[in-house]
């Protein structure tokens, strides 16, 4: 069966980690063609062609695709859909914007955030903030699937697929891009980092979030946050981990001043080792932590940073 994998392309570059993880899921559904769309996406296409197990790469190079606007991107997918039984993408905010739109245009359901591929028509996905796992079987002629990247290993390199240009599918001009506010950071990316250090409301202020960041830098970790920390302005929105933020599964997750609400657990409970530092011994986070330290974070975190 033919699968079209929409690559994650940001700023003209391939997001290799997200795309390679979705590729692993896509390969379980059939023969994979990767689509790179962007304004000047040749580099991304070359990078995608090197991923192991890609049969072909399509490159849709047009100004309309430069900022990932949902309307032209969905139209592009629809224009190519005829040749494929599956359209797959990593479950990034970009794909979650585009895939449901394309699915409705094709009169099929979208299957969001798939965590396992049972067979080409059957998928597992977490529901209720990960408190239940549902297995769904699609009867649609086309399956449109976004993939939860934290549960798939990245496909390796070593491929040498051919790259083919495809025509753009026009732009109805329903929306236009104004600006992106993207924080530049030298830290590892949150969803692919091996270690994540997250702070919650207990941290108390934006200034004191520096404690979390210092520990993160010592561990070469990405920084995460609870919703309460983001809502209170201690941390930017793209650091939020949880049901409505990012889903992470690092080797080590350190939760500091975070109570452990189910909505937060939804985003990190598949981490290999969880450490919790909280002054309240009753905090639910301790029920999922491998190592819990009941302590005041303002004393424990600097001490930990120093002793590592």
């Amino acid at each position: 069966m033919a699968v079209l994998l929409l690559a994650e392309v940001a700023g003209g570059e391939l997001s290799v980690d997200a795309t390679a993880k979705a590729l692993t899921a896509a390969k379980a559904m059939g023969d994979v063609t990767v689509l790179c769309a962007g304004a000047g996406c040749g580099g991304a296409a070359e990078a995608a062609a090197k991923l192991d197990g890609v049969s072909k790469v399509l490159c849709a190079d047009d100004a309309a695709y430069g900022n990932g606007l949902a309307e032209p991107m969905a139209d592009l997918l629809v224009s190519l859909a005829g040749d494929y039984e599956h359209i797959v993408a990593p479950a990034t905010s970009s794909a979650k914007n585009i895939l449901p739109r394309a699915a409705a245009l094709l009169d099929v359901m979208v299957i969001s955030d798939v965590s396992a591929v049972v067979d080409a028509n059957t998928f597992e996905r977490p529901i209720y903030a990960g408190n239940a796992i549902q297995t769904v079987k699609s009867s649609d002629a086309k399956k449109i699937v976004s993939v939860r990247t934290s549960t798939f290993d990245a496909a390796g390199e070593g491929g040498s697929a051919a790259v083919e240009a495809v025509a753009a599918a026009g732009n109805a001009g329903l929306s236009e891009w104004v600006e992106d506010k993207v924080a530049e950071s030298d830290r590892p990316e949150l969803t692919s980092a091996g270690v994540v250090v997250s702070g919650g409301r207990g941290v108390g202020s934006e200034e004191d979030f520096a404690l979390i960041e210092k520990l993160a830098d010592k561990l070469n970790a990405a920084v995460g946050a609870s919703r309460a920390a983001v809502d209170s302005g201690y941390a930017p929105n793209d650091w939020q981990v949880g049901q409505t933020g990012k889903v992470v599964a690092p080797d080590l997750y350190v939760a500091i001043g975070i109570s452990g609400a189910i909505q937060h657990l939804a985003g990190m409970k598949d981490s290999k080792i969880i450490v919790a530092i909280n002054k309240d011994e009753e905090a639910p986070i301790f029920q999922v932590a491998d190592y819990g330290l009941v302590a005041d974070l303002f004393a424990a975190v600097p001490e930990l940073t120093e002793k590592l």
Partner: protein
Amino acid sequence: MVSGVAPDFEEKHAMKVLVPVKRVIDYNVKVRVKADGSGVDLANVKMSMNPFDEIAVEQAIRLKEAGKAEEVVAVSIGVKQAQETLRTALAMGADRAILVIAADDVHQDIEPLAVAKTLKAIVDEEQPGLVLAGKQAIDNDMNATGQMLSALLGWSQGAFASELDIDGDNAVVTREVDGGLQTIKVKMPTVVTVDLRLNEPRYASLPNIMKAKKKPLDEKTAADYGVDVSPRLEIVSTTEPEARKAGEIVGSVDELVAKLKEAGAI
């Protein structure tokens, strides 16, 4: 003397806002998977309005208060009990409500594609200038309905909004995305799906709860709109995720460091 200010055309042509609201298990309830694997137990559990939809209702009411909307219509598709959810929207300040009964069993959920098709039929009838939906429903976490509705209408879409500014024929939407924030300008009419930080929803006051009981609530069925709500996805099973095994409490930072070294985590 200068004559009085000309009648405000904006106001005269102020738009209607449609807000789809879903009845879901309350976010504080610990969900239980049924032993036979057929789904999640929804009998006798507290149900509430999807939290994202409260934010959408709040935003619609604020647009009305700012003179940018003339009427706020809340819609829910599902079981008869979704009336309660709509009454909550009315108590917050929506003007009227439409309930589309599409299932008898509280355990039956309607897929986003079918919900979007029903909403499209309602949009064709009501002609709103804006649909404000939630980004995702916290039960199925599908994150799809608003985008699907926008596609079926051929409208623009502003998904995951944390800021919304409507100005005549356009809306400026700031979206929460993986890398940070993205601002786009969309043509009206439009479908916007709201994220958590757009606003903080108000609580309905007791007098408003009483008033809401008298506000109009129309009952329809999916058949009234000629929409086929039969599912495209068959639920094969619903299972409990693997539980993490309880860990240990360490006594000091030194012990924590030692344990992490032992586990090879650092």
